[in-house]
């Protein structure tokens, strides 16, 4: 299976998160960091969900992480695909797909690294593949 067989819906980009998707177009994964409380968060917000400070900034993530959980959807879709939460090195977990591999072989605890995949009429989005 390749992701080319599955049309990836374009993200509905809004001004608050536009830098994230602009960076994705350049092959960079950004994550929001709050300089007031020293914590990362995802999905990204202008105001920190941990301490409610507006002192949040974009940081480039290392792009590696570990599968927190996953599932392969097999029915009602043209091509089975693996959805997962990946816990980044930075400590936050993000919803994603694990691609360019046998989806059945993906497992919790597996080391993965970021790749960027084109969407249907929108910016590319970060996905992950076995490291």
């Amino acid at each position, binding site marked *: 299976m390749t992701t080319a067989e*599955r049309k*990836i*819906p*374009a*993200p*509905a*980009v*809004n001004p*608050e*998160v536009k830098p994230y*998707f602009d960076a994705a177009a350049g092959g960079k994964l950004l994550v929001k960091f709050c300089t007031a409380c020293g*914590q*990362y*968060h*995802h*999905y990204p*917000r202008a105001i*920190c*969900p*941990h301490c409610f400070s507006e002192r949040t900034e974009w940081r480039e993530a290392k792009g590696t992480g570990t599968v*927190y*959980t*996953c*599932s*392969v*959807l*097999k*029915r*009602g*879709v043209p091509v089975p*695909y693996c*959805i*997962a*939460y990946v*816990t980044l090195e930075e*400590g*936050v*977990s*993000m*919803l*994603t*797909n694990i691609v360019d591999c046998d989806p059945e072989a993906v497992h*919790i*605890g597996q080391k993965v690294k970021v790749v960027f995949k084109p*969407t249907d009429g*929108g910016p590319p*989005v970060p*996905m992950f593949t076995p490291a």
Partner: protein
Amino acid sequence: MSIKRKACLVGAYEHPTRKAEDKSVAQLHAEVAKGALEDAGLARQDVDGYFCAGDAPGLGPLSMVDYLGLRVRHMDSTETGGSSYLIHVAHAAQAIALGKCNVALVTLAGRPRSEGSSGTQPRSWGANLPDAPFEAPYGLVVANSYAMVAKRHMHEFGTTSEQLAWVKVAASHHAQHNPHALLREVVTVKEVVDSPMIADPLHRLDCCVVTDGGGAVIVARPEIARSLKRPVVNLLGAGESPKGQAGGQLTLTTSGAAWSGKAAFEEAGVKPGDIRYASIYDSFTITVLVQIEDLGFCAKGEGGKFVADGNLIAGSGRLPFNTDGGGLCNNHPANRGGMTKVIEAVRQLRGEAHPGVQVKDCGLALAQGTGGQLGTRHGSATLIMERA
């Protein structure tokens, strides 16, 4: 201020249909409202409070109040998906305790079966949803959201597909007695785990049914409840809690029931061990297992062992659950199972459940709802009720 014994469930009605191709959604709301009023022995003009959620067509309660010809002085359209209706019951009790209304009507209805809804298709919540850009590209649907919870629960606690299957097996044992249930055939653990995989590790028989229909309940002041001919069901305690992803600090194997349940038990002044019957939201088998743990019926991680070997089956198990067959076998109208959870708890407390599943001396019951998605963000609501 507590709602303990300040309000009663006086009417409950579940629409018998499971496919309503020839009816409108508003019509179904009216039919269940009529059914609940008849059950209570009340008239439409007695209703002075109305509650509905996102399944009701129109702007909050406005269209339905107008359509139903109600004259109300209190209204509430709290929307937390399938758990909304348990919150409505609690909010109705609060309103009654404060003198804001005397008789509150709560309705739910929908036609997802006729409209071709499925748990493997994405649902749209609008372009301004802040989480949408980070979920929609990845094909998040209801089934794989709950499946990720199940996978993680298995990883952390060693829960098995066979243990999850027992939840469905118990529901099917109950559904065989319900002439209106969509699925009435008793199934085995093997049949569940051999059914087609939908989103691993959840099989087709781990998923709830998709049905049209609806239900309604009526909450009233205790003096009014005592003047009616029906057995009196007191509300003892309630809790509500949202739970999300905490900015990326995931704890997927714990649900909001950990907070809503604690609040409800504290207000009611009872313990999990006192509960004789429990309606537990069953969008999927894993939903039941996680909530049972979080409500304190067993320790976190012990849910698999707790639900196994028929422990949820009325007559033989320690915690009879969803004796109508639940969302897994009977009915999940409008893709929202909270209303039918309340209705079956009322039937049990009145002694009006099917004789094949009626819990003996059922004096204390719990209803638990989860709306939204366990895998992302959800609302949890707990009600504890007693037979007066």
